[in-house]
């Protein structure tokens, strides 16, 4: 008689340490498991649901300003340091980790309109409506004690803010600023990544060297105010501006002249380059959409990112994730949205009851957090991935999460998973505004269609949306 006996070597089943996991031996023959697809689909569905359950993006609010926050700058050298400028001229340095002000000081007479830091993180440039551009020396960011130390804030400030450069005598006796430039208000400032120049935008675009008192170069093309400007982080000599004549203008510092201008139907409030793709930039337009362009082919937008319901008058801000795969926008409609770099709709909408008009947003340099500054004088810290677990993950936890994400990614096209994944609760006002917008767009489309129907065939060609809002490209 034959008796079947399982024989296994002890080596395979002996753990080296008592903490080791027991080995599990599986037979991966697909013939044995016919339900794997169903199993994985269910897991994907559950993962989508769990993601919704754990979606708690809001980390905290940081208050300290006494007026709306108009601009922010992140420090490329210190992950947790962020500067914010407010409408009353104050500039604050924050420690995001502790969610405290490190120091606060009166920066400008009027509103601060632009902040930028140098790549080494030692210099801060600020500009404002008081027609000054100021250069600050940033101190080493000390570890912020979470205990109470608000009392000596001012002292700390005076300790590290010093006159950086005063080459000439100036009628203005202020100690902090580098230059008083009497033109119009300065609207924006940005610093090169791979160089030590910075640029300001106002009536014209000025290029500055921090060691000189005057701009080393000035560009003007047309007489309209330049609203915002950004250096290309990958290609330090290229610069883009948006102006109030509804234009986007490309500059090349090496040729000392503007390069090209694109005129759209509405103006762009803010622009941002993709840090991982130096030819691509995204402009946040007044018509609530964001347009991604290739700087070499400006005749049409590559992608139109829709979603926001209002971006009126003042500002809609935009900042790219350092990974280049996402960008964040803050808008007048009191939401912060995250877009995929080639997604036509937002992947995430963040809002809170108390957050008012969002004037500025930043993606932190590790791509994990967002900071938004809004009308309600608060900075808010968000997670970039709403359901992400913060802190150190065990390898098994991380693997599990990776697997769930992968499964969800795989089955995201199936209706149920898709529905759960896309579902968002919105404040009533935003929901209604979005509905209204949809109706309006539909009506517009319908009207165009009807007009087309009643005009000579071919006289009204259908234009894709990515071209529709572009008027012309000026050489």
């Amino acid at each position, binding site marked *: 008689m034959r008796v079947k006996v399982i024989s296994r070597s002890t080596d395979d089943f002996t753990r080296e340490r008592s903490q080791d996991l027991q080995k599990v031996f599986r037979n991966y023959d697909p013939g044995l498991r016919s339900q*794997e697809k169903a199993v994985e689909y269910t897991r994907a569905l559950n993962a989508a649901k769990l993601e919704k359950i754990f979606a708690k993006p809001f980390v905290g609010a940081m208050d300290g300003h006494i007026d709306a926050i108009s601009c922010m700058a992140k420090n490329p050298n210190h992950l947790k340091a962020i500067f914010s400028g407010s409408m009353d001229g104050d500039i604050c340095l924050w420690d995001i980790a502790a969610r405290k002000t490190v120091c606060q000081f009166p920066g400008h007479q009027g509103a601060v309109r632009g902040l930028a830091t140098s790549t080494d993180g030692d210099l801060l440039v600020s500009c404002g409506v008081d027609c000054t551009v100021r250069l600050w020396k940033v101190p080493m960011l000390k570890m912020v004690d979470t205990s109470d130390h608000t009392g000596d804030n001012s002292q700390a400030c005076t300790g590290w803010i010093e006159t950086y450069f005063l080459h000439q005598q100036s009628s203005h006796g202020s100690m902090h600023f580098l230059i008083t430039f*009497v033109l119009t208000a300065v609207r924006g400032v940005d610093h090169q990544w791979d160089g030590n120049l910075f640029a300001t935008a106002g009536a014209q675009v000025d290029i500055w060297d921090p060691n000189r008192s005057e701009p080393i170069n000035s560009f003007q093309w047309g007489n309209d105010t330049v609203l915002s400007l950004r250096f290309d982080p*990958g*290609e330090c000599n290229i610069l883009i501006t948006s102006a109030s004549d509804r234009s986007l203008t490309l500059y090349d510092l090496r040729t000392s002249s503007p390069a090209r201008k694109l005129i759209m139907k509405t103006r762009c409030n803010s622009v941002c380059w993709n840090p991982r793709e130096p030819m691509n930039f995204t402009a946040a337009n007044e018509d609530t959409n964001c347009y991604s362009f290739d700087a070499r082919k400006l005749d049409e937008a590559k992608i139109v990112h829709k979603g926001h319901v209002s971006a009126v008058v003042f500002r809609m801000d935009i900042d790219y994730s350092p990974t280049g795969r996402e960008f964040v926008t803050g808008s007048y409609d009191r939401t912060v949205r995250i877009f995929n770099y080639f997604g036509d709709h937002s992947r995430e909408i963040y809002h809170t009851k108390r957050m008012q008009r969002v004037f500025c947003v930043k993606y932190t340099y*590790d*791509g994990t957090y967002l900071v938004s500054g809004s009308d309600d004088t608060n900075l808010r810290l968000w997670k970039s991935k709403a359901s992400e677990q913060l802190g150190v993950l065990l390898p098994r936890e991380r693997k599990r999460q990776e697997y769930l994400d992968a*499964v969800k990614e795989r089955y995201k*096209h199936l209706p149920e998973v898709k529905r759960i994944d896309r579902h968002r609760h919105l404040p009533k006002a935003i929901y209604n505004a979005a509905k209204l917008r949809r109706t309006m767009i539909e009506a517009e489309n319908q009207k165009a269609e009807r007009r087309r129907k009643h005009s000579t065939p071919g006289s009204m060609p259908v234009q894709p949306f990515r071209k529709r809002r572009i008027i012309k490209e000026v050489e």
Partner: protein
Amino acid sequence: MPKKPTMRRGKPTPGPGKRRRHGPRLPTSMRRELDAMGPGPAHGSDDEEGSDAGIEDVYEYEEGVPEEEAGKNGRYDDVAKYEYEFDSDASDADEDVPSEEGEDMEEDDIDDGDDEEKQIRILQETTGMPREAFDGKKRKQALELPLQHGDGDGPVTIHDLLDNIQGKPGYSKVRKRLQQQERKTMTVLAPLPKVERDKIERKVAYKASNKELTKWEQPVKMNREATTLTFENDTNLGVNTVAAIASEFKPRTEFEKRIAEITQSAEIIEAHKNDGARILELNKIDVEDVRERQNRLAKMRSLLFRHEMKAKRVKKIKSRTYHRMLKKDKLKAASADIEADPEAVKEYARKQEFERAEERMTLRHKNTSKWSRRIIERGLTVQDEGTRAAIAAQLQKHAHLTRKMNSTKDDSSSEESSDENEDESDSEAKILNKGKEKIRKVLEEYNEIPNSGVFSLPFMERAMKKREEATYEEARQALEEYDDSLRKLEDDDTEHNEDSYKVAGKRTFGPVKNAHEEVKKRKLEDTENISDSEYDSDTARHLSNNEVITKHDDIQPGSALLDDEPQNDLYKNFSDIIKNPGPKTTFEVGMLAGDSWKKVKSSKGNGQRNVDGSTNKSKVLVPSIVDPKLKQQDHNSDSDSEEDMVEGFLTISDRKEKYELPSQADLICQAFAGDDVEAEFEKDKMDVLNEENPEPEKPALVPGWGQWTDIQQKKGLPSWMLKEHEIAKRNREEALKRRKDSKLKHVIISEHVDKKVEKYLARNLPFPYTSKDVYEQSIRMPIGPDFNPTTSISALTRPAIVKKPGVIIKPIQYEEVNPHEKPNELKRVIQRAIPNRNAKKASAKQGKRVTTQKRK
């Protein structure tokens, strides 16, 4: 541009104002002619004065120049300033015409000075800052005049420069070229309007920036196509061996410092070194020594091994008697020790003390055990002698153990000795004697037959008698065997006994006393139901006996019950049979064994028959029971086949009678006689259509108002109802027309949508995919850890972006990428996106991110 490409006369310049020329100008054609004549006599120091004179006298006409330069209109000043701001230094390079630096220089300076004056004034007005603030530039520019004047006050010409290098090797060449150039006619085109020029400039700038940006195409494409981008810092952890860390150690605390002082003092280090050297010298080993040591070790090892083996063998021995004796031996040895060694005495005393204490605590021997309680409950008078003796012994032991310490020693020794004697005499013979005694008793009691109840019935009596006779026979036989073995025991030593005991669990050959004992015991049970077996020292065997007995009891009523038992039991039964070939067990096997077991059983039976001739009793039964069964089966199968044969024969004969040769048409008609296929299909199709696009219900009269007054009947159905019906009908027809199978007469294409399945289907093809098959292929393979080995999971589930929170990700940096580089190159830069190409192998993700930008 303020600087105009003008040719000037070689006169000393009178001043900034005079430079501007007023008055009549020559028409362009004439000027061209003049130009053709050659250069003017401006260069005083030149050799070829005369030939060039005519041309030098003429200046070029330009439309826009005079007005601008004259400063008639204020607004031109602004322009001048504006331009100055933009291209203060670079403007020379922008000119379209070849400039003659020497000549222009002075004029330009003057021009600049003039303009600057104005500009400073303007700036002063607008900014309100002191004049000094804007002076810096002017001063700087004044320093930029590097040229030396050739002769006195005159303007610097190219000839002045040439004079300086007279006599140097390349001089004649340069001069010749210059002459050629001067002889050439020179027409200067009108500069383009500023707007145009700017445009051209911008075009060039855009082209340059485009070129710069295009170089990024390759890395960006690579990054986009990569399944995974890794952003992480290559943090250098530095040296990480223990030795390396230890070498870094510096004493900090007092204690550490003191120790360091001692250990690192020169003397100690020196001494250590010396010692080490000496030790090394001493370390030389003799071959002989090594061999000796090895041998010693080997010997020790073998001894150990033998000892171990012996211990194992001893441990394996299951005999209680043996162990008991072993224990006794040990005790003896111990007591011998006690006399010799005072230490051992102490040890022994301690042990005794412990035992006594234990006894006092547990009262183990004070009739507290379950067995003794039960015995006492039943009454000691009912029990047999043995039991009573055992209980008495227990009590005695208890008394002995709890006795006062003073007297223990002597008593215990005496007790021990008596015990020893008893046990020794016991050992084997006693057991056998006991068995013998019991059997005798059985035989005595055999005559006593119960007279009451069912047993008094005559047929019961008869049956009892029969059985008893059989048992009597058996018992007698057993008795004889006991005698035999007793006799044998006297001859053999204990070793032999051990062996026989050891073999007990296995197949036994020759006269086995075990089997007989069992048989005997069963008989006892059957007849008397007296459970004196508890007293038996060999409980293990007793238990096994009981098992056998119960089994037999179960079996006896009928073999049908046994069929349900699992095979294991069967095996057990078989093994039992092999162990004790009693008459009943063999019978039972016969009943049990189906056809499959037949062979096994019969062979076993044969084997046993061959082996133990002395114990074959009622084995004759076996074949007689099994064989009929077999035969029966054979009969059955035979009869079945016969019947089949008969049937086949019958049918064939039927067909033969009817057969005729039909035509083809007939055959077809016959084949499809009963069914109208086409009509059936039509009907099926209609059913499907009706199911998928149901026919609208016919309008019916509305119950309620006016029903009883004939009005509804007169008027008929309301018009809206009819209309609705019409519409529904039309809709249905349209829907039917739209169907894919509307024009295909012989086809049904179901358009039914299964809602339950729909849940698992993507509504439309996801973006990067171009065909359904590719998409389905991409999600075919599972990616989970349950379905894939660990090695491949990480590749399958790797996210598109791997980053660590807290690591600053810097913007992309350009580096020349060698397209032929090896794919498995490691991270080179401290931080950069590394497209993970290995992961591409994972087919699951293939094609997902291979995208160009999505267009709407």
